[in-house]
């Protein structure tokens, strides 16, 4: 439990499928910072620490971004853990504030690679990808997770429509999120008729690349805007390279710490009111949910058809990346954290989960070779 650190503000830029000419990731990140500062009731001069993650900074580094934002800092970190960067940065930020290293920390993620830029990122993600996967025409992460999805379907007896329940439910949530890129209703017929991208994954199983940015501000609880409930991190855990890529990818690094996470939080899966589970693919949402103990009896099919399909448990109430879009995994993960904060503060508007007091958020990323190698999760709570 982190008693002396709280999330006190969140903000995001607009999301767009295709940025305007000259509109870079830095512009989106600036907009997210301005929005988060306004939300927290702070000025840029109040920021003492910053953590940032983006595919779009190079050749700049974090300190160059601090310069461009006019931030003079006593703590600075650049995170390279892809889809778990948001959650990794949250863990580092709360520990930094908790120990008094900095009183106010900005967490920032954003990208505007465009489709061609994203293709370059995907083809050169790491040495293993560059040397051993890209020359195959493996399709980037779509190809990698297509193979994982085939294993999951076989192991758990899933049907194609099971993934559809996740995509459809999230689209229903996205309709209530003005920032989501895809908000039109999605039917099961449309889902099943969508063109295949990488068998068995079809269009609505694959996260759409967008441009955008997210920012979160962590500070001592007494810096929170007056009259607004704070959000504390009850427990946080992370895992990096949990199995040396020797497994099947159907378990994630979350499996290494889930019991510790629940124990430290003093909570059980049944206690969670709302969850943000990293959703680059429905396949990986299910893998994380199963690792966390959210799926009784490892019955993934029932979880899709009943728990999600019948709206018994709110997951990715902002629409998830599958509908809102993925501005790089870094910002995508931060969006899930931001939504959990809004839900716990009862500021989620039309998509508010009534009486939400305890939330779960996860991150998953870094497709090293056969699947992702980083994961992190936190239990967040509303504090009056």
């Amino acid at each position, binding site marked *: 439990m982190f008693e002396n650190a709280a999330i006190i503000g969140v903000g995001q830029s607009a999301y767009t499928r295709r940025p305007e000419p000259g509109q870079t990731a830095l512009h989106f990140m600036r907009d997210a910072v301005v929005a988060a500062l306004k939300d927290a009731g702070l000025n840029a001069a109040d920021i003492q620490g910053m953590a940032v993650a983006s595919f779009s900074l190079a050749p700049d580094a974090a300190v160059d971004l601090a310069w461009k934002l006019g931030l003079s800092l006593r703590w600075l970190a650049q995170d390279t853990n892809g889809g778990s960067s948001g959650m990794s940065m949250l863990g580092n930020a709360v520990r930094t504030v908790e120990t008094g290293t900095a009183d106010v920390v900005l967490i920032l993620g954003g990208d505007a690679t465009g489709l061609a830029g994203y293709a370059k990122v995907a083809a050169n993600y790491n040495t293993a990808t560059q*040397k051993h996967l890209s020359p*195959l025409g*493996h399709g980037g992460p779509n190809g990698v997770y297509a193979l994982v999805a085939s294993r999951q379907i076989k192991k758990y007896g899933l049907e194609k429509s099971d993934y559809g329940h996740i995509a459809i439910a999230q689209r229903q949530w996205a309709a209530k999120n003005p920032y989501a890129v895809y908000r039109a209703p999605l039917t099961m017929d449309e889902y099943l008729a969508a063109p295949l*991208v990488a068998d068995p994954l079809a269009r609505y199983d694959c996260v759409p690349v967008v441009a955008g940015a997210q920012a979160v501000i962590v500070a001592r609880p007494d810096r929170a805007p007056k009259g607004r409930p704070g959000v504390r991190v009850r427990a946080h855990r992370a895992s990096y390279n949990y199995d040396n890529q*020797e497994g099947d990818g159907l378990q994630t690094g979350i499996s290494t710490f889930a019991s510790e996470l629940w124990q430290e939080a003093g909570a059980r899966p049944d206690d969670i009111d709302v969850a943000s589970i990293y959703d680059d693919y429905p396949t990986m949402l299910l893998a994380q949910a199963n690792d966390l103990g959210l799926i009784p009896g490892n019955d993934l099919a029932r979880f899709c058809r009943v728990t999600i399909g019948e709206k018994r448990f709110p997951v990715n109430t902002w629409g998830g990346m599958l509908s809102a879009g993925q501005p790089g995994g870094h910002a995508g993960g931060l969006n899930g954290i931001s939504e959990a904060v809004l839900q716990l503060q009862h500021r989620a508007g039309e998509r508010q989960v009534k009486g939400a007091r305890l939330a779960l958020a996860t991150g998953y990323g870094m497709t090293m*070779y056969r699947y992702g190698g980083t994961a992190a999760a936190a239990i967040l709570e509303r504090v009056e």
Partner: protein
Amino acid sequence: MSAGITIWRCANCRAGFFPEPLLCPRCHGKKFETNRVHEAVVEEISVIRHMIGQENWQPRRIASVLTSGGPRMTVGLRDESGPGATIELFEEGTAPFGRAKAK
């Protein structure tokens, strides 16, 4: 093109790996021998029908395979081999490929 694919085998515990590690993930030994593996069994396949940022893309087949030398790897398939099929492996540059084993 060269027949087989290079894997790295720990000189201490004999576990095989692909790609090349620096320390053995199992025993943390630092000495490796290279082996050529020539066969694998296809476990899962996918057809890459769309490549982001590419026009006129022609579908390609990839597969997750269990090699006779131990490690699993992802290969490009040059024919219609499916799950359960035994394939022969070959390298083009640094990339692993496979096709049905000649009878």
